[in-house]
């Protein structure tokens, strides 16, 4: 029997890594991710988990150690946040281009300066193009579920790509919620052993990480790009199988009350649950609104997004990151681009808020819906609008 326990998302992720029976953990503690390596180190020390815990001197080393671990075919886990993800940045690219299925939790955190340990999506957006499969969790149950699922998908011989599981720092990482933990037998049924055909082995020498001169580099990048896009099939299959075993089914694009809605709000991560409450309030007062929670970030779910918004007049996208000097929020930019060639598409309006841990309330989302509708109808001089900023924001012009 599965059991319902109170866990913060950090402990849920650590528990998922334990139940996945990881072989190697290499991580460097950083707020708000600290509880994950702390808990896993404790499990290894207590004998609850038979794994190698590699203490390292930085995030760059953490992910580098993970490369070596994955190269010999070990199930490998790490976690980081904010500045830590920035420090490992160059290795983030190496993991995906060498096709090592490392699973990494990112407890989303704002980037310095000014120093902030609190949440937003700046760290995630900075690794947008690194070639990892990436998902955003809405709550602590998803933090557990996506971590398990990430091993299943990344290690699939048809995929062999690293997976980043994002959840919001503090608002999920440090908040206790009910989480349903499955039986080990169920996890084992869902998650086969990692069998890596190219594992480094002194008895059968081969080269990992060969040099790529100009006459081959472009071909390697095409192969990598096609592999990431093709992983979509296994991603969907993984969620289907997850649902069949655990009873919770997931989609790349989650729709909430979008049937017939004229205005749709699009959010990612834990803000989606707050936004759902705003949708409920608006619906109760007779407004035609719905919510889209973008769960799968890479590979981008073009088809599902187009399908979900095809009948809407307005699509309001809420970002938790500024793309400095760019068109709109980074998520909005991609959403708008994904819809650009559609004959019938909604007006896409960009809002940015919730930076560096700033709270965005149900009331704020109600405002975003009202103001978004107004901008779609009357237009605005600004490329995007900020939510909850003191002082009128002007000068964001294209």
């Amino acid at each position: 029997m599965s059991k319902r326990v109170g866990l913060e998302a950090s402990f849920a992720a650590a528990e998922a890594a334990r139940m996945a029976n990881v072989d190697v953990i290499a991580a460097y503690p950083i707020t708000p991710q600290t509880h994950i390596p702390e808990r896993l180190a404790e499990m290894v020390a207590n004998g609850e988990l038979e794994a190698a815990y590699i203490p390292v001197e930085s995030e760059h080393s953490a992910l580098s150690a993970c490369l070596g671990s994955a190269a010999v075919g070990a199930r490998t886990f790490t976690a980081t946040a904010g500045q830590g993800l920035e420090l490992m940045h160059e290795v983030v690219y190496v993991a995906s281009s060498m096709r090592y299925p490392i699973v990494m939790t990112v407890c989303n955190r704002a980037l310095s300066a000014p120093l902030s340990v609190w949440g937003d999506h700046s760290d995630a957006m900075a690794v947008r193009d690194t070639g990892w499969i990436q998902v955003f969790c809405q709550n602590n149950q998803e933090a557990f579920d996506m971590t398990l699922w990430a091993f299943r998908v990344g290690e699939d011989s048809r995929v062999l790509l690293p997976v980043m599981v994002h959840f919001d720092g503090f608002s999920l990482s440090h908040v206790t919620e009910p989480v349903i933990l499955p039986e080990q037998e169920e996890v084992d049924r869902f998650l086969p052993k990692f069998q890596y055909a190219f594992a480094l082995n002194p008895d059968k020498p081969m080269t990992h990480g060969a040099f790529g001169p100009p006459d081959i580099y472009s071909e390697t990048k095409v192969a990598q790009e096609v592999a990431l896009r093709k992983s979509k099939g296994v991603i969907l299959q993984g969620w289907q199988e997850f649902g069949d075993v655990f009873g919770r089914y997931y989609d790349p694009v989650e729709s909430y009350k979008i049937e017939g809605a004229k205005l749709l709000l699009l959010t990612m991560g834990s803000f989606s649950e707050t936004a759902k409450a705003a949708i409920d309030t608006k619906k109760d007062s007779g407004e035609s609104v719905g919510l889209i929670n973008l769960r799968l970030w890479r590979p981008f779910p073009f088809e599902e997004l187009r399908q979900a918004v095809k009948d809407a007049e307005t699509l309001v996208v809420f970002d938790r990151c500024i793309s400095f000097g760019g068109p709109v929020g980074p998520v909005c930019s991609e959403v708008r681009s994904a819809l650009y060639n559609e004959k019938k598409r909604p007006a896409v309006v960009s809002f940015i808020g919730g930076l560096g841990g700033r709270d965005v309330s149900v009331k704020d989302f109600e405002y975003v819906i009202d103001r978004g509708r107004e901008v779609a109808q009357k237009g605005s001089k600004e490329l995007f609008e900020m939510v909850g900023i003191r002082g009128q924001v002007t000068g964001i012009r294209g």
Partner: protein
Amino acid sequence: MAKKKPKTVSDLTWKDLEVGNIVKEAGGASARKTGDWRTERPVLDKEKCTKCALCWLYCPDAAIKPTEEGYYEADLDYCKGCGICANICPVGAITMTQEEEQ
């Protein structure tokens, strides 16, 4: 479609690449001449050479090979001209010489 086995990297399409660009056979570099960017080459003075084999031992690229007469000479298809052999030679039998002067 019958496919000829590609011989050089330039013949490979993106579909020919192994996952993660792994090279499954060991020692693949020997199939390519890797010394073409050398600027200096080691030249051996056989009068001075004592056949001690230190150059062979220290060459980081296994480019120095024993000859039939028992000397050790660099295989210029692979030698990168790093000069370690010249530096390690206890009797000064190896001189690094500019490629242009050859």
